C-alpha cells in the first residue's frame, strides 16, 4: 500500500471516494507518523488520537452511505490559536495554562461540519508573536528541511511553525494557520509548502485567540495550491459573530485555479528590490517572472512607494492592538494565577510569570505608544501611513491584476541566529507585512531551492476578495517549479 502520509489533501479525498483505503487507515497512518516524529519535530503540542479515530469511523460510515462532505475523513492539524471545544487551547503561552474552551472557533466549526478529522493542536510562537517558532512556551519546532550535508536544526518559520513543519513532514494532510504580519506565508516559504492569507474579513476571527484585531486573518498551509483552494473554500464564511467578516459568497476556488494565466497582468514592484537582498532571491524572482510570462501573462514594473514604511508602521499598530487584546489575561477569568498581596499585585505577578519575553516586549511597546500624549504621534500616524500603503496598491490595480514578489529575504535560518536581536527577526516580515497592512490576500508558493538546498517561496498579492486570481497565478508557478519535499525523512527514523 502507498504511504498515505505522502498524499496531498485532494489525492486523499479522491482515494477515499474510490475506496482505495478507509478514513481509519488514513488517520491511523498520520497518528503513527506523529508518534514517531513528534519528539524530534515538536510540531504538535497536543495530540487527540482517540477523537481523530472516532471522527474517521464516522467519516467511513458517511462515505459508505454516499453522504461524504467536502473534507470527509481528511486528517488535519489545528494551530493552537484556534479555540476547540473541550480541547486545551493555549496560544502556546503559559498564561493560558490548561484553558479548555467551552466553544468552537467558527473556522474549525466549518472544518468539522465539512467532515474533517482533528489530529491535534499545533505549535506556534507565543500568541503568534514571532517569525521562527522560538517563542513558544512548548519549545521550538524543528524544520524537516536541513541544509545539504548538515544536520543543524533550522527554524520552520513563524508564527505558524507547527503548521508548516507538520505539513512538510507529512504529519497531517493540511493545517490551519493565522497571519498577522506574515505568519502563514513566511513559514510556508521556509518549508516548501503553500500558504494563503485571505483578504481581511474572508474568514471569521471568532474563537481565534486575538493578537492584532485589524490585521489577524486565518488561512491554510497545505502541500499544493489545489489543496489550499479546497481548504479555504471550507474555512471561509460569513459569520454574524464577527462584525468584520464579509457577507460575500465563497467562490469555487479550485475551478478558478484552473483558468490559467493567459492575459493576466502581473506587477513587479521595484521597491521590493531591497538593499542586501541575496542574489539567489533575486534570481528566483526573475525565474518566477519568466514562468508567468511563458504561461501567457504580461509583466509590468510597478511602484509601491510607501513599502519601506510598512514594517515600522506595523510595529506600532500590532503591539498597540496586542497590548489591548492581551489585557484580558488577568489571572481572574481563566488560565494562570500567581497570587499577590492585593489585586493589582496578583495581576502583575500573573502577567510576569505567564508572558514570555517577546510578548512582554510587544505589550510594553503597545502600552507606550497608546499612553497619554503619544497616541497621535504613534498609533494615529501609523494608521495614516496604512492608508497610504493601501492607496499604493489601489493605484497599482489600475494597471495590474496581481503582484509578484519574493516571500522572504532569505531561506530558513538556524536556531538562535536571529532571536537575540528583535529588529533582525522583525525584518523576516519585510515582504509580507504590507499585505496585512492593506488587508489584501497573499499566497506563498514554493518556487525553488537555495544554494543550501532549502526551500524558497514566491509571494503573489491580489485585489481584495480576488483569491481566485492568486490561485490561478500560484498554480502556474507550481506547474513550472514542481513540488519540493525533503530528500531524507530523517524524522521518521
Amino acid at each position, binding site marked *: 500500500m502507498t504511504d498515505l502520509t505522502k498524499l496531498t489533501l485532494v489525492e486523499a479525498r479522491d482515494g477515499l471516494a474510490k475506496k482505495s483505503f478507509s478514513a481509519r487507515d488514513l488517520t491511523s497512518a498520520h497518528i503513527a507518523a506523529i508518534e514517531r516524529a513528534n519528539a524530534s519535530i515538536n510540531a504538535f503540542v497536543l495530540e487527540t488520537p482517540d477523537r481523530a479515530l472516532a471522527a474517521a469511523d464516522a467519516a467511513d460510515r458517511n462515505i459508505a452511505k454516499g453522504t461524504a462532505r467536502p473534507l470527509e475523513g481528511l486528517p488535519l492539524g489545528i494551530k493552537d490559536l484556534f479555540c476547540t471545544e473541550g480541547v486545551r487551547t493555549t496560544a502556546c503561552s503559559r498564561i493560558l495554562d490548561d484553558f479548555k474552551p467551552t466553544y468552537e472557533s467558527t473556522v474549525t466549526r466549518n472544518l468539522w461540519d465539512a467532515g474533517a478529522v482533528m489530529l491535534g493542536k499545533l505549535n506556534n510562537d507565543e500568541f503568534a508573536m514571532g517569525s521562527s517558532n522560538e517563542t513558544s512556551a512548548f519549545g521550538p519546532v524543528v524544520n524537516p528541511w536541513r541544509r545539504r550535508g548538515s544536520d543543524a536544526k533550522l527554524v520552520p518559520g513563524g508564527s505558524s511553525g507547527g503548521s508548516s513543519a507538520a505539513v512538510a513532514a507529512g504529519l497531517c494532510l493540511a493545517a490551519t494557520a493565522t497571519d498577522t504580519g506574515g505568519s502563514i506565508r513566511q513559514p510556508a516559504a521556509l518549508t516548501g509548502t503553500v500558504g494563503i492569507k485571505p483578504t481581511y*474579513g474572508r474568514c471569521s476571527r471568532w474563537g481565534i485567540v486575538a493578537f492584532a484585531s485589524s490585521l489577524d486573518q486565518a488561512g491554510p498551509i497545505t502541500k499544493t495550491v489545489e489543496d489550499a483552494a479546497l481548504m479555504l473554500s471550507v474555512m471561509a464564511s460569513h459569520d454574524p459573530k464577527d462584525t468584520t467578516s464579509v457577507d460575500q459568497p465563497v467562490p469555487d476556488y479550485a475551478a478558478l485555479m484552473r483558468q490559467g494565466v493567459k492575459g493576466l497582468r502581473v506587477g513587479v514592484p521595484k521597491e521590493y528590490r531591497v538593499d542586501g537582498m541575496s542574489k539567489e532571491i533575486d534570481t528566483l524572482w526573475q525565474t518566477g517572472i519568466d514562468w508567468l510570462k511563458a504561461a501567457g501573462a504580461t509583466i509590468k514594473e510597478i511602484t509601491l512607494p510607501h513599502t519601506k514604511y510598512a514594517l515600522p508602521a506595523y510595529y506600532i499598530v500590532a503591539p498597540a492592538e496586542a497590548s489591548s487584546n492581551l489585557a484580558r489575561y488577568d489571572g481572574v477569568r481563566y*488560565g494562570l494565577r500567581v497570587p499577590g498581596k*492585593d489585586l493589582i499585585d496578583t495581576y502583575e505577578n500573573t502577567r*510576569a510569570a505567564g508572558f514570555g519575553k517577546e510578548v512582554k516586549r510587544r505589550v510594553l511597546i503597545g502600552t507606550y505608544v497608546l499612553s497619554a500624549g503619544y497616541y497621535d504621534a504613534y498609533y494615529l500616524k501609523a494608521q495614516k501611513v496604512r492608508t*497610504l500603503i493601501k492607496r499604493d496598491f489601489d493605484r497599482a490595480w489600475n494597471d495590474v491584476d496581481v503582484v509578484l514578489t519574493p516571500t522572504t529575504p532569505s531561506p530558513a535560518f538556524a536556531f538562535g541566529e536571529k532571536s537575540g536581536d528583535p529588529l533582525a527577526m522583525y525584518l523576516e516580515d519585510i515582504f509580507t507585512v504590507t499585505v496585512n497592512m492593506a488587508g489584501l490576500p497573499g499566497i506563498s508558493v514554493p518556487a525553488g531551492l537555495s544554494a543550501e538546498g532549502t526551500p524558497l517561496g514566491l509571494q503573489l498579492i491580489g485585489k481584495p476578495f480576488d483569491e481566485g486570481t492568486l490561485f490561478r497565478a500560484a498554480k502556474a508557478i507550481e506547474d513550472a517549479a514542481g513540488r519540493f519535499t525533503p530528500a531524507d525523512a530523517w524524522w521518521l527514523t
Partner: protein
Amino acid sequence: MHVDEATVRRIARLARIKITDEEAKGLEAELSGILDWVEQLKQVDTDAVEPMTRVVGQDLKQRADVVTDGEKAAEIVANAPMADDNFFVVPKVVE
C-alpha cells in the same frame, strides 16, 4: 526616542507586568531601539491623510436588539483559577 528606566517602569506598571531590575535595564535598550527605528515614519507627510479605520468599506452591520446568547454562567467560570457559586473569586479590593 530614548526611553529611560523610570519610563520603562511606569509603562510596565500601566501594563500590569512586574519586571525585575535586570529586565528593566534590558528593556530600556530594546524599547529605545525599536522606537528609534519607527521614528522614520516622521519622513512621511500624512497631513491630509485619513487614518485607516477599516480595511474593507462595508456598512456597519445591524441586527434586531434581542438576546441571542447567555444563561451560561457555569461555562463562563469553568476555566477560572478560583470560582465560587458562579462568581470569580479575587483578593479583597474594598476594606
